[in-house]
């Protein structure tokens, strides 16, 4: 792909056959958790030009890079606010089990998201746990369940590393998910434009067309 920023993942719902291959491919590429949910067609982040999730995130944990909207795991508090800000329901939650890390520090809150963040801002350093798990008493829980907030990252890492297409587009048997240069995708642009329209104008209401 020529320029990372110029390609988008298009979904053509007319072609979806409901096979769930995209969910499986996404899950295998993202540590066992899928960022796609197939309803009557696959639903996942539309990487909007004017993203409501970025607007509401009080931690600046969602950023745009190379035309993709990325949730920064180290900054995310799993509060779930962005989940309800997405009109598409594309930000998802999954209950996972995590090791308890008693000394782990959360990043300080950044109240106003218009504050500039420097490019070199380091990731959160984790302090060593004050007690090692081996020393813990037997009845101390070592794991806990949290509700993880996650969403499609456009397989940007895959693309930046090897030029590979997003896993969902690569696997879709019917061609319902395609990764295309915006300039080249004329009929798909119509669907894409409507998605953008949905987000920027937000005049969509169930049962009526804008």
């Amino acid at each position, binding site marked *: 792909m020529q320029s990372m920023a110029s390609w988008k993942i298009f979904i053509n719902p007319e072609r979806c056959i409901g096979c769930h291959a995209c969910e499986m491919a996404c899950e295998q590429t993202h540590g066992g958790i899928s960022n796609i949910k197939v309803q009557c067609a696959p639903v996942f982040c539309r990487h909007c030009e004017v993203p409501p999730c970025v607007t509401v995130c009080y931690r600046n944990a969602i950023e745009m890079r190379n035309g993709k909207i990325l949730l920064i795991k180290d900054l995310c508090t799993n509060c779930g606010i962005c989940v309800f800000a997405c009109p598409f329901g594309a930000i998802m939650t999954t209950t996972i089990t995590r090791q308890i890390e008693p000394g782990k520090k959360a990043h300080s809150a950044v109240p106003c998201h218009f504050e500039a963040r420097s490019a070199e801002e380091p990731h959160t350093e984790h302090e060593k746990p004050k007690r090692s798990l081996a020393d813990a008493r037997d009845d101390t829980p070592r794991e806990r369940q949290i509700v993880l907030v996650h969403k499609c990252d456009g397989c940007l890492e895959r693309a930046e590393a090897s030029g590979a297409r997003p896993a969902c587009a690569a696997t*879709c*048997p*019917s061609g319902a998910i395609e990764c295309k240069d915006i300039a080249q995708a004329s009929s798909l642009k119509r669907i894409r434009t409507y998605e953008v329209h949905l987000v920027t104008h937000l005049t969509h209401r169930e049962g009526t067309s804008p």
Partner: protein
Amino acid sequence: MMVKKNKVSVICPYCGAGCRFGLIVENGRATGIDYEPDHPVALGALCPKGNSAVELLNHPERLTFPIRREHNGTTRRITWDEALQFVANKLRQIREDFGADAVGFLASAKVSNEENYLFQKLARLFGSPHVDHCARLCHSPSIVALSRAFGSGAMTNPIPDLENSRCILIIGSNFSENHPVVSRWVLNAKDRGAFIIAVDPRKTPTTEIAHIHLMIRPGTDGILLNAIMAQILREGLANYDFIASRTEGFERLKNKLQQFDIIKAAEQVGVPVGDIVITARKYATSPSSAIIYCMGITQHRHGTDYAASCANLALLCGHIGRSGAGIFPLRGQNNVQGASDMGALAEFLPGYVRTNDVKKRQLVAKLWGCEDIPSSGLSVTEIIGAILDGKIKALFVMGENPIVSDPCSSETEKALSMLDLLVVQDIFMTETANFAHVVLPAAMWAEKSGSYTNTERRVQWSPKALNPPNEAKSDLWIIGNLGKLLGLWDTLPQPEDMLREINQVVPFYGGITPERIAKSKEGLIWPCPDEHHPGTPILYSEKFHRENERATFTVPEIDFEAPRSFEPFSLITGRVVVHYNSGSITRKLPSLLRYTPKLELTIHPSDAGELGIKDGSTVLVKTVKGTVETVVKVSPSVRQGSVFMPFHFPETNRLTPKDLDPMARIPSFKDAQCQLIRKDK
């Protein structure tokens, strides 16, 4: 420690689409999948089943050592030497006491061509005529009907060629669930303006693609096809040039069709007569039309007639032998086409030499270095019948699960319990393996090299990517060693050697050498008679494969005037996208099972209302063959008076009928009728 990471390009082990993908292997273990866009059929795509490949290869319940089961049911681990000696001795003993024809051999639609070839060779050199496999249960009508009509029984055009069709008639196929990658090409055709017609008693993701869906009464496919042909004749839309120059036998069919009452037919079929007229006109007048069909056509008492009617329709309009025009019987398994080509069928030797054609048979015998080869044997379900009659005493089952796949499971169970020897060679302890005296652990597809023939007649090489676990061995190794012990040959062949022998014995595989296909991503499509031949993607462009090079129309045997009625409910069995055939693989894979974790019977809302049941209710389903319990799903995707059950679960085939189509000997799975009894809480 350096991680040794490798990527090997393998062919998918599931359906007959024959997709290719990269398997990532790290330190001898499968860890990931890489999509390979430069493959013609799928363009790198992979359906959910293909995506489960890594989970499958690493499954903890793999059979990894030979097992002996005693009469009291206890099992113990044994060595390969013990296992093979035991099997060889017992087979020899049974041959001595009862004759070689007291032994049956079930080949596999999933192993490589080399393995199936060696397996049927073992059976026949041993002296048994009874070699068959599960193609009997699915496309045997296609092999019989299309061979008769055209000279070859296979699909005529490659899958991507579908995008060149201007009209596609889909009848009895749910490819969106069972051959998902076919959907892309049909949708491409649709985008280009093709008219898509779907015929199915159910609404499926496939029928959603179509412009019109003829939701026919179950079992009326033959009436419909003939009504369409009758209408084409009536409107003068037949391709008389084609009929005159390339076919024979038209007059007989024409006379029969001229008497066809299309209005009455529409009533019997249960669709508006206008839909039949539209279908007829669109199919006949489009520049190139295709017919896609599958189990909805074949798994009937008259499956061969229905398949023959599809052939008639194509010939009537000359829609065969060129791009976008052809017949697409979608073969189900990754190598069922190959298993058929290799002669793992009761009436065929490799290359479709008829076992009852003495002259040709003896030519094959000569190549094998023996006097003669046994004549025709019993088919899969007839073998079960022969066991029950005490005529067959031993059964060797390779990569098949008849307890779940065959109709009327209670009879299969009874038969297998009666055997003096049941050997099952498989990757998991399947429902059938639970009855076996000896269980032999086999390697999976990625753990051995071999060639596989997909539904397009495309022969592709799938190289070995990793070793089988523990003591599991490739089917070639097992059969090769067993043959040695039985004194049938001296050396253990490698896959490449086996393919070279196949090049000699099967003329249309003549040029499909290991050297050529091992370095080719897209393989070679047979017929490929010699090493310079590029293969033959589209069949019959110049001539048909019959002696006089013409195709023939066939007049159906049955009288279509009186369609069968199914009371109180027609029971339709079929598939769902995340499961595969007997479910022996997919029901063990959580990433697939979670989407369809249990058996559900689909019933129409009106019928549910009348029975007083709703979504999630439990019912008993009763047929003359048995009774099972299942949960219900209410949906208008089935007709009133019709219910649907997927056969990936062992309960379903407890219910299905064993009546065989007389020509292809396929059980009439889809001609079942059942009663539903509400199970009160």
